[in-house]
């Protein structure tokens, strides 16, 4: 029996709807027999009538409604059809949900699912990774699961958390990533995972880039290097301690992320390691992100735009030679 990353998300939602009557799912095309643009809610509207609701194309009011419901005791999950479209809900997410607890002492337990990241031919408005934007504003938790198991346990945890959670699920992993079964429990959010132990260099990354990094690590074994790979799992909170421990072991740091290069998760990690772990560094820390342009459509351009195994390997080799 094998289960895909997407199926894990669906299973998690089914479990949530089953176990917690406060949960409902709100988004475009999620209801009826359609079950969502990526089938993340297939069958759920039927199994849980009245709790998986189609919305108009109104991201602002989808989130606004979720906020109102959450303040009044519900645990809504908002499915954005693409992360890219959440920008029209930015105000409700950042300025309403993100500030509410700080201003009124009442927390807002909403979960916003963002299908993120590029797939071949998806183009500028169906490929974005927005975790850096959401992590930047106060008041939000930002999850970036990279494995089937984490996709499952972290979504369940997201709904249980009393604060707004931005759950960045990666579209490329939906059908490409499979696991044998789903765990009952996982690492808590806020803890990074050592995906591969190493000695010569730490690659710190998250989401789909984890798998590129692991491929690079395998490749570099043949060149006599053992690369340690750290999966952050959430970019906010960011597990600085695990990252520092890894750099303590290897002395060299390469951060890889799929979002745009200016600022963002990779810059944040490097800032922290440089400030708190300067004495652990044997070489200047490096980062690799997508290019500073909108995401191109053509597959050739797309694969050059985002970090990939070859790019990562090149950067890693340079850093190992430093």
């Amino acid at each position: 029996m094998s289960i895909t990353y997407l199926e894990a998300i669906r299973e998690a939602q089914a479990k949530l709807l089953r176990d917690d009557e406060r949960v409902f799912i709100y988004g475009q095309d999620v209801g009826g027999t359609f079950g969502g643009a990526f089938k993340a809610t297939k069958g759920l509207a039927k199994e849980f009538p009245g709790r998986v609701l189609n919305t108009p194309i109104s991201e602002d009011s989808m989130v606004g409604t979720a906020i109102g419901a959450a303040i009044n005791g519900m645990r809504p999950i908002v499915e954005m059809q693409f992360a890219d479209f959440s920008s029209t809900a930015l105000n409700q997410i950042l300025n309403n949900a993100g500030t509410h607890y700080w201003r009124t002492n009442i927390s807002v337990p909403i979960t916003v699912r963002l299908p993120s990241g590029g797939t071949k031919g998806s183009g500028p408005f169906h490929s974005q990774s927005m975790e850096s934007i959401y992590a930047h504003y106060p008041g939000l938790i930002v999850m970036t699961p990279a494995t089937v198991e984490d996709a499952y346990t972290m979504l369940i945890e997201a709904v249980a958390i009393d604060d707004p959670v931005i759950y960045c699920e990666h579209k490329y992993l939906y059908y490409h990533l499979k696991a044998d079964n789903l765990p009952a429990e996982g690492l808590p959010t806020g803890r990074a995972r050592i995906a591969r132990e190493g000695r010569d260099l730490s690659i710190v990354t998250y989401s789909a880039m984890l798998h590129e990094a692991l491929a690079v690590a395998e490749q570099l074994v043949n060149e006599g290097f053992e690369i340690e790979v750290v999966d952050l799992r959430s970019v906010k909170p960011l597990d600085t301690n695990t990252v520092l421990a890894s750099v303590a072991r290897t002395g060299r740091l390469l951060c890889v992320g799929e979002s745009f290069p200016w600022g963002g998760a990779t810059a944040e990690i490097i800032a922290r390691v440089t400030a708190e772990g300067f004495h652990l560094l044997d070489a200047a820390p490096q980062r690799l992100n997508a290019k500073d342009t909108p995401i191109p459509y053509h597959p050739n351009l797309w694969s050059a735009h985002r970090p990939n195994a070859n790019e990562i390997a090149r950067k890693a080799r340079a850093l190992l030679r430093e």
Partner: protein
Amino acid sequence: MPQVPIIMPQLGESIAEATIVDIKVKPGDEVVPDQEIIDVETNKAVMGVTTPCKGKIDKITVQIKETYPVGAVLGYVEASEEDAARFKKTVPEPPKGTVAMEIPGREEQAAVAARQKDGEGARRIGGLPVPATAKGAGFLSPRVRARMTELQLINADLAGIPPTGSGNRITIKDLENFLHKIEDQTAQEASAIRAGVADAMRRSWTRPLSTIGSSVNLDPVLQDRQSRDPKPGPGLYALRALALALAENPAAAAKLIGNRVVQSSSIDVGIAVEAEDGIMVPVIRAADKTSLVDLTTKYKELVDLARQRRISPDMQAGGIATVSNFGTFGMEWAPQFRCQTKRCCSGSASARKFRPGIKKKNNLFPGLKPRSH
């Protein structure tokens, strides 16, 4: 009766000041709370400033057509104790610092002065020359340095480690490999003195080293010595002579830095003095200008200080040459080693009686005219 200030209110988000357009009261007027007494104009509107409380206008400190910043005091109302107490706490602080500087009419002189000072961009304090390129820039990483500190290693300890890093730098791996290798080699703990001496000797590997010996007839020295009280040791004669020689030929004690030979500005010579647990080498400053008589006094002081272990590192720093008398240990010959700062050493060996019949020049040192000391 206490006075309650009338304050220029915050009239809008980006408003920093307002102009007085009308003053409706004069000192002595009775006023009630919230009475509009002054009209002010911003770029957005004309507003009325109201009295903070009931009372009598004590004074108005502003003028029509003048501009004042938000928070400025516009005047005072003489009020009851009770009213005054209420407002004590809530009167906002006038703006301080850089905000105040930017508001014309407030600390204007200082603001203008500050602007002018900053404007003099040409005159920069400090400012380092900038290397043209990054070529050759290398480093010992923070990690390597942290490890060195932990193990009490210094840069010289790293000499000879094969570097694998870019720009031939020693990486943490290089260091750890090296340390791992020497673990198998026999080692002993070195005492502080032994380590210091060994370190100095090690450093001398990197310095130009040339050892010259010359036999000298000491009869004139011994003769001269007899006529003196107190008697200077032979080493002091050597020191004085060396100092004079260096004053005439400063290149001998110059330092090679890059491709330049840099001369010292002062002939400072160290003299080795025996202390309880080793040798100290305090430095006599401007030895060429110090007479033999003064040298003798100085030397005696230093011997006493050395016995009391009161020769500080400062006293031993900065010499360009040293003199040591190993002859007192019965040695005939010894190459000298240099510490980082000392460039020239002179040692005197034990004397031997010459066989009579061999003619020797009656000079202490060849090429030097005898001087009176």
